[in-house]
């Protein structure tokens, strides 16, 4: 049943109010943002806690892994601002008036809503035992609870936890972690009665006791004893015994926070929980309830984050006018409690008619496994304690007949189990991440269609693994399996012809002084690839390595010489950039962006005489477009005569070093930025690298040259120069990192020499410095260690390589126009050298030319 109301067709004036910014509330906001609802409606969030949503599930990691409250935060930086969400932290809602559709917060803030969403979560249930209000009694739900427990624990030596369920064991883990003698008291006959069965409970108990926690099951707490100072002194149990305890944590279950809903007359369940339908709507069509405060349409209140997230998605969909329903969820859990792995999934207690179970139990190692199987062999559920390796595979198999007999699935590996079931055995529909409801098919798609090659990339792309984290391990297996199936990246090799990475090939070329692609391929290529022609991936990559090291390994410095000519990408081959219609563009180098009027006039004359389209580039120079191949040498002859050189706009090489006008003219300048830019551009011109290199020099911190967006950027200081590295404009902009400060001219150049050579040596093909810096192990600190502190002892070599490049530099265009053999290549047709390519055609626009638009027919009939 989907009721369509004003709420499902939100407009700009609509207001959506969310009460409660917990895990599910945050997820709801993300789901709204994903659907663009935050762009069209006003969204107001009332958050009771003093901080925005955080990862409650990992609360205990604050103790066990020294996480800070900030580490637990859930909303990524800037999320609220980016989506225009108004978040009121520390300001809980105190009343809701459904008549006037207003919510009032404690601060007095009143908001009129079109849609109201309750995500108020639960409160810890504290049984009505005498003494429960004494100093030293705590609950365990929020970061504030945790900070209070930590502070109080400093003054006591023992503690007791009331409740041996999931949260109780978490709390016991926290107390243990604080160094207290720890007791757990559970009324039921076993630990975690909801999740595990008798056998699992026993295995769990042994493991927990093995960690030094005293377990008391089958007894209740009858009183908290209090000392004369009003502080907790111990706990009296129902069997008459007394436990000494300096503090008590109540973890005896949670109750839905449905008080606001009750007060405004919304129906709630008998045992609490705001009644909602499949769309998570309450009895009032404009009010939704999601997460732990809701009583779902299947009559359950879900105390886990995965079902809560599903409700969040459902409500967001409904509000966005899309279809969605939450009809119930399974209660699978996988936890690491006090270092003991526990998992339960599906029908863990075997309540299905006619089911059987298969168990394996090893009391000594604390391993217990039980699978519940239907009469037809369908896997219905299970309990795993101690060793939960197989959880990631078994849970998605629930509901199907596993490809391996159940007894093999419970036996430990090596104990007669003939097969270990990998995630590859699962069908594509299997849900791998239940927190975010991500199927195996979606994960495979992330790898195959979206190019994700690592678990972090898959997490970002699909959200899988970003909830409880229990599926991360199996995600890793799946990613590797998928990559292997695709035959791509697990193999870190460059391409089908080389098993090495670019950095490895660089080392081979340098160490063995290899000067030709053929020698490298035939001597170091993959088995079947030797003697072949290679491909369009390895050829330019190797050409670039050979060009960077030409002077050192004895390869020709000219990229059009001999074999090198056949390796270059087309642009390098013609020393110009190919445009969409097959014509070429020409970019003479204008170092630092400084140019004399005479040279400007030459450029103007050349452009006019050859009818070229002229444009000032984003790189402080001038691009001339529309030249035919056979015109290139003629144009360059004129340019070279006037003193111009190649600008390498076609190469993966240094492009421009931009400059601001600097000290010479500018009233703020503190150094001569133009001179430095020219020096740097002339020093590194022609340097071939894994990707293009860009630089800029600014004369003061106002940064008019935008140096911080460059691969290496220089900013003048009163005392010298600051060097920034790893900046990028382009598709994924990144601000550069400061590598070193207040450098003299010589220090600056030496450091750039080392930095560039180290990058050239270790980067992958087409990896800009920004990406490289973030990828390589150790990041900026490592690079600084290597190039500033010479931690690898290679700085001498890096400097020598650069010195060789600088000494060996020759202008490619000057060399080309003086060499008839190289020039013979610049024709459109080998059999008609004087005929221009008729497909290169232009039409006029704004007083210049532009390529004639081409009508494409994607078929050219085959003539033979």
């Amino acid at each position, binding site marked *: 049943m989907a009721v369509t109301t004003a709420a499902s067709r939100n407009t700009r004036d609509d207001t959506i109010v969310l009460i409660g910014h917990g895990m599910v509330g945050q997820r709801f906001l993300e789901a709204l943002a994903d659907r663009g609802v935050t762009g069209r409606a006003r969204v107001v969030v009332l958050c009771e806690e003093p901080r925005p949503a955080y990862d409650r599930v990992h609360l205990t990691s604050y103790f066990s892994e020294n996480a800070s409250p900030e580490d637990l935060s859930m909303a990524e930086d800037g999320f609220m601002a980016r989506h225009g969400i108004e978040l009121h932290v520390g300001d809980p809602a105190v009343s809701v008036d459904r008549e006037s559709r207003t919510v009032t917060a404690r601060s007095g803030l009143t908001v009129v809503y079109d849609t109201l969403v309750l995500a108020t979560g639960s409160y810890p249930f504290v049984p009505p035992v005498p003494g429960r209000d004494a100093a030293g009694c705590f609950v365990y739900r929020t970061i504030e609870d945790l900070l209070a427990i930590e502070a109080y624990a400093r003054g006591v030596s023992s503690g007791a936890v009331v409740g041996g369920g999931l949260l109780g064991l978490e709390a016991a883990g926290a107390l243990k972690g604080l160094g207290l003698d720890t007791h757990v008291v559970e009324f039921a006959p076993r630990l975690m009665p909801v999740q595990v069965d008798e056998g699992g409970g026993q295995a769990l108990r042994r493991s927990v006791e093995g960690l030094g926690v005293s377990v008391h099951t089958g007894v209740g707490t009858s009183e908290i004893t209090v000392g004369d100072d009003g502080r907790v002194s111990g706990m009296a149990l129902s069997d008459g015994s007394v436990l000494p305890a300096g503090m008590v944590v109540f973890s005896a279950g949670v109750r839905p926070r449905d008080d606001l809903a009750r007060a405004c007359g919304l129906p709630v369940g008998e045992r609490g929980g705001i009644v909602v339908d499949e769309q998570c709507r309450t009895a009032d069509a404009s009010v939704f309830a999601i997460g732990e405060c809701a009583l779902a349409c299947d009559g359950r209140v879900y105390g886990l984050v995965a079902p809560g997230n599903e409700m969040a998605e459902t409500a967001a969909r409904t509000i966005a006018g899309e279809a969605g329903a939450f009809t119930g969820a399974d209660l699978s859990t996988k936890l690491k409690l006090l270092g003991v792995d526990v998992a339960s999934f599906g029908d863990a207690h075997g309540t299905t008619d006619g089911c059987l179970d298969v168990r394996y139990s090893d009391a000594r190692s604390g391993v217990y496994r039980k699978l519940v199987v239907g009469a037809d062999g369908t896997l219905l559920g299970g309990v795993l304690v101690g060793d939960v390796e197989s959880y990631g595979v078994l849970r998605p198999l629930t509901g199907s007949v596993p490809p391996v007999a159940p007894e093999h699935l419970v036996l430990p590996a090596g104990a007669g189990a003939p097969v270990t079931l990998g995630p590859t055995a699962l069908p594509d529909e299997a849900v791998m991440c239940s927190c975010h409801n991500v199927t195996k098919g979606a994960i495979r798609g992330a790898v195959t269609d979206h190019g994700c090659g690592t678990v972090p990339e898959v997490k970002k792309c699909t959200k899988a693994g970003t909830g409880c984290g229990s599926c991360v391990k199996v995600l890793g297996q799946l990613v590797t399996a998928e990559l292997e199936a695709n035959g791509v990246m697990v193999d870190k090799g460059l391409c*089908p012809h080389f098993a090495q990475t670019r950095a490895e090939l660089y080392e081979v070329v340098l160490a063995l002084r290899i000067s030709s692609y*053929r020698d490298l391929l035939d001597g170091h290529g993959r088995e079947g690839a030797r*003697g*072949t*022609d*290679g*491909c*369009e*991936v390895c*050829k*330019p990559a190797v050409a670039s390595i050979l060009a960077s090291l030409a002077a050192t390994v004895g390869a020709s410095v000219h990229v059009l010489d001999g074999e090198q*000519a*056949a*390796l270059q*990408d*087309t*642009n390098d*081959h*013609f020393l110009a950039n*190919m445009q*969409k*219609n*097959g014509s070429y563009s020409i970019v003479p180098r204008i170092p630092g962006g400084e140019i004399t009027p005479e040279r400007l006039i030459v450029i103007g004359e050349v452009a006019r005489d050859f009818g070229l389209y002229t444009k000032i580039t984003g790189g402080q120079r001038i691009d001339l477009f529309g030249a035919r191949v056979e015109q290139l040498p003629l144009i360059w002859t004129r340019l070279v005569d006037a003193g111009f050189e190649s600008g390498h706009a076609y190469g993966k090489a240094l492009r421009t070093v931009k400059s601001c006008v600097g000290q010479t003219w500018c009233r703020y300048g503190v150094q001569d930025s133009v001179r430095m830019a020219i020096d740097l551009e002339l020093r590194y011109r022609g340097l071939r690298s894994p990707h293009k290199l860009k630089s800029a020099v600014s004369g003061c911190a106002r940064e008019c040259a935008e140096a911080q967006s460059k691969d290496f950027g220089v900013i003048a200081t009163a005392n010298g120069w600051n060097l920034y590295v790893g900046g990028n404009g382009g598709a994924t902009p990144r601000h550069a990192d400061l590598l070193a400060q207040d450098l003299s001219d010589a220090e600056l150049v030496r450091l750039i020499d080392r930095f560039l050579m180290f990058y050239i040596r270790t980067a992958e093909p087409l990896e800009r410095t920004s990406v490289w810096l973030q990828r390589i192990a150790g990041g900026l600190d490592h690079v600084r260690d290597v190039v500033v502190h010479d931690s690898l002892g290679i700085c001498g070599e890096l400097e020598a390589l650069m010195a060789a490049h600088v000494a060996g530099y020759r202008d490619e265009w000057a060399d080309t126009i003086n060499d008839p053999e190289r020039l*013979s290549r610049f024709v*459109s*047709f*080998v*059999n*008609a050298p004087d*005929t221009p*390519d*008729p*497909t*290169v055609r232009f039409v006029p626009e704004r007083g210049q030319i532009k390529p004639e638009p*081409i*009508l*494409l*027919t*994607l*078929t*050219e*009939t*085959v*003539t*033979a």
Partner: protein
Amino acid sequence: MSNVISPTLPLTGTVELRTAEGWLAVCAAEELLPGRGVAALLPDGRQAALFRDRAGRLYAIGNVDPFTGAGVLSHGLLGTLQDRAYVASPLLKQRFDLADGHCLDDDSVAVASYPVRVSRS
């Protein structure tokens, strides 16, 4: 007949390509650099791209890139995939099988292919 011939190296003579009108002399064999193409203008105004691979085998396919309409395939890089030679268009990088002109990245697209030979005059 097969449009691929495998002469033994070194390759000398005149490279010829067969069109509807018969064999057309295109260039001296030495002008074909292994791994690099050249373009030829055909009598009917069409264009062909000729290649020579490392083993000395010759290929000729249509020069006009069907994805952009530009006469550029001869400027692409030659590669091998499971022993078959292809050229990657320099514009948008689609690959074309040099033996029969079909596009390896889009089954519905193909360019012409032409028989080639070297005549030792």
